[in-house]
């Protein structure tokens, strides 16, 4: 009896991802017409390489946002991990595998601190992670002390991680794809993953069915930290030069990708696939503007318009469906 509108809502959620794909197609088409060099394999590779780092962090951010939280500290975590990893290698303190592992563990630890502040300290996530955004960046400055790590200081094995290829595809892109697939599996097909959706959809009901909300929210922040650790290690490898400013402002790109990708900022709905598409759309637009020699000012303004369009479309679709449903139940 109420199956039809319910189905419509489900379809609308799918359409959301389809919509981004269509937008992506239109952008690609437009840029190709204006600047044929866009489609060159080199350029497409560059787009995917830069999107990959954002995408890895965005996969972690998706986990957090689904639980009705947000992690603003991702840029600082990526930057701190990138510098510390590079510095360990520069000092020859650790070998490459050990340093990579150390970077990931550092990210996990930073994320766990976020999770502890939010769950044990009961500080709202937006405030807690705004705090750690600054604290982690401050630590980065403290450790760096005005110095930087350059490609000359780093072993070739480390620099090669990002640029080497598996079956012709750069490791960075493969890593992003594998991580996205793994996170998608956990979110879609495991009990803890479904519990994350439940917490974001109705926290009180989640408690009522005995879902350990606090533990899972903690885990979500820890996972975001771990993925930022991975992104930080790859960041150093890709760019070679790391200073204390590395990855500043990355949090905004990451959150933009998640939101444009249709993950509800109030939790409970959205997919990693959507967030990946969001990252890809924003990355493509960035690249296109560079090719078209538009200024960075336009870049930010257009990113902003894309976010507003995406979120506005969500609100409109949801609103009209809710009204339709209320009208229906009124007639009962």
């Amino acid at each position, binding site marked *: 009896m109420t*199956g039809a509108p319910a*189905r*419509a809502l*489900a379809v609308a959620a799918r359409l959301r991802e389809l919509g981004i794909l269509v937008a992506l197609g239109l952008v690609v088409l437009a840029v190709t017409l204006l600047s044929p060099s866009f489609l060159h394999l080199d350029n497409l590779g560059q787009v995917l390489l830069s999107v990959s780092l954002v995408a890895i962090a965005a996969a972690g951010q998706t986990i957090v946002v689904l639980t009705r939280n947000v992690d603003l500290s991702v840029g600082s975590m990526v930057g701190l991990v990138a510098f510390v990893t590079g510095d360990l290698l520069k000092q020859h303190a650790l070998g490459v595998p050990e340093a990579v592992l150390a970077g990931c563990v550092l990210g996990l630890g930073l994320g766990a601190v976020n999770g502890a502040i939010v769950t044990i300290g009961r500080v709202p996530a937006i405030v807690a992670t705004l705090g750690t955004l600054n604290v982690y960046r401050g630590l980065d400055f403290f450790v760096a002390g005005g110095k930087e790590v350059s490609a000359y200081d780093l072993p070739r094995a480390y620099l090669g991680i990002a640029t080497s290829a598996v079956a012709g595809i750069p490791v960075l892109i493969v890593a992003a794809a594998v991580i996205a697939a793994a996170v998608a599996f956990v979110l879609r097909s495991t009990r803890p993953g479904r519990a994350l*959706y439940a917490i974001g959809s109705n926290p009180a*009901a*989640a408690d009522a*069915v005995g879902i350990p909300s606090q533990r899972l929210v903690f885990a979500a922040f820890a996972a975001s930290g771990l993925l930022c650790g991975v992104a930080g290690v790859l960041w150093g490898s890709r760019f070679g030069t790391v200073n204390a400013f590395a990855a500043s402002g990355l949090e905004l790109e990451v959150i933009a990708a998640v939101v444009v990708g249709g993950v509800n900022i109030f939790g*409970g709905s959205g997919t990693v696939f959507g967030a990946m598409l969001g990252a890809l759309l924003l990355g493509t637009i960035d690249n296109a503007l560079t090719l078209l020699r538009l200024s960075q000012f336009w870049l930010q303004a257009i990113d902003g318009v894309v976010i507003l369009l995406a979120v506005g479309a969500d609100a409109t679709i949801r609103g009209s469906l809710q009204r339709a449903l209320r009208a229906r139940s009124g007639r009962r």
Partner: protein
Amino acid sequence: MTGPALLELRGISKRFAGVRALREVDLDLAEGAVHALVGENGAGKSTLVKILAGVHHPDEGEIRLAGAPLVLAGPAAARDRGIAVMHQQPNLFPDLDVAENVFAGRLPIARFGRVDWRRARSAAAGLLARLGVSLDVAAPVRGLSVADQQLVEVAKALSLDARVLVMDEPTAALSGREVDRLFATVRQLREHGVAVLFVNHRLEEVFALADRVTVLRDGRHVITAPIAELTPAETIRHMVGRQLDSLYPKQDARPGEPALEVAGLTRAGVFRDVSFTVRRGEIVALAGLVGAGRTEVARALFGIDRADAGEVRVGGRPVHAASPGDAMRAGLAYVPEDRHDQGLVLDFSIAANVSLPVLARLSRLLGVVDRGGERALAGGYAERLQIRATGVDQPAAGLSGGNQQKVVIAKWLATRPAVLILDEPTRGIDIGAKAEVHRIVSGLAAEGMAILLISSELPEVLGMADRVIVLHEGRVAASLTREEATQEEIMTAATGQRGA
């Protein structure tokens, strides 16, 4: 006809911030029996349900399940012991689909910890089929009607193989056909030996379904009896049997011309064809059980919610209140039920609270508020209403409940309304402050203000009101004069026992 006691409650007491919600209540639930729990608003039914759900913990008393003492650490503990609770409002996950809601937190797992969606969906579909419902198990719950969501809750309880099923007013949002379907399911569960606790306001449903009935009043156990030994009229007497006291000093008023006229007011699915008139100097009470639509009518009158049909006149002029601002300009004032959430800004001083709705009147050039005028205004009302505080600069948070309520009333009096709507004005305030609020309200009516009083306390309604409008499920079930109104008459109409 009933089996042995499966769940026993002995001497359960619970207090909240000094208010005794339950006092030494005993209750036995037998296997294969439906036990109805009835009582007026505030009798303690919901508190008892929440204790069984593991949400609240009793201060005193003991719960035994199949003879063994039971301590419910939380909702999960209750669930694990086979106690399923359906709350009044479905508590589901709107973003997730029906199957996932049925098995939330307990999704079936296949190899590698992977959720077995196929099994979850077919099991959910099977449960819904048992209920005789055709719902798309893959559709998100957000799109379902409240009735369908309630059925998802039943399916959830079924999936738990519950031995005890607690249903807190499960039929509140269901249509007649849906109620029949639910009852058929409950009878089926009874056949399978489930102990059902059925909390309900609708006596005809209680008498149609229950084997035994327990009446609570003011947190105390009044009577437990097999349903065959009671009549609806006797049950109502047990529910209300309370002495009237002389707390309610209603002054005689000579009602003047109509101040508020409501004709055919309707909000789809909430209330229907509500008509009444309140004259100048008259106190009209809007009585009814929780969920009958009293507050909803007030909200529509005050422009918070929109009515779908009907006419409202204030002082003879038609009013189309699309917002509280419109309603205020038309001469309406509304003191809401929840003074913390909707009535007061706790961090503000008394003066700032009182002046809030009339800031425009108190503003000078460029909207700068005249602080002196504000304090004078608040001071006048503080004196008149005898608000006990160190001064009008004292923050509202530090006041007692009764004095907070007086500040809210002062705030709305400052708008100089023709019609004052009071929603549960004495809930949660002590008895002395209650009497003062009654004196104030009565005085306002004597001055010619028209007052619409929403109250769940029958003695208050009977003591204060010149006339009583009783709502039952969103419709006017009775309109009683002061002489006609008795506790029994009101409860009879409010529980739907009177064909109005």
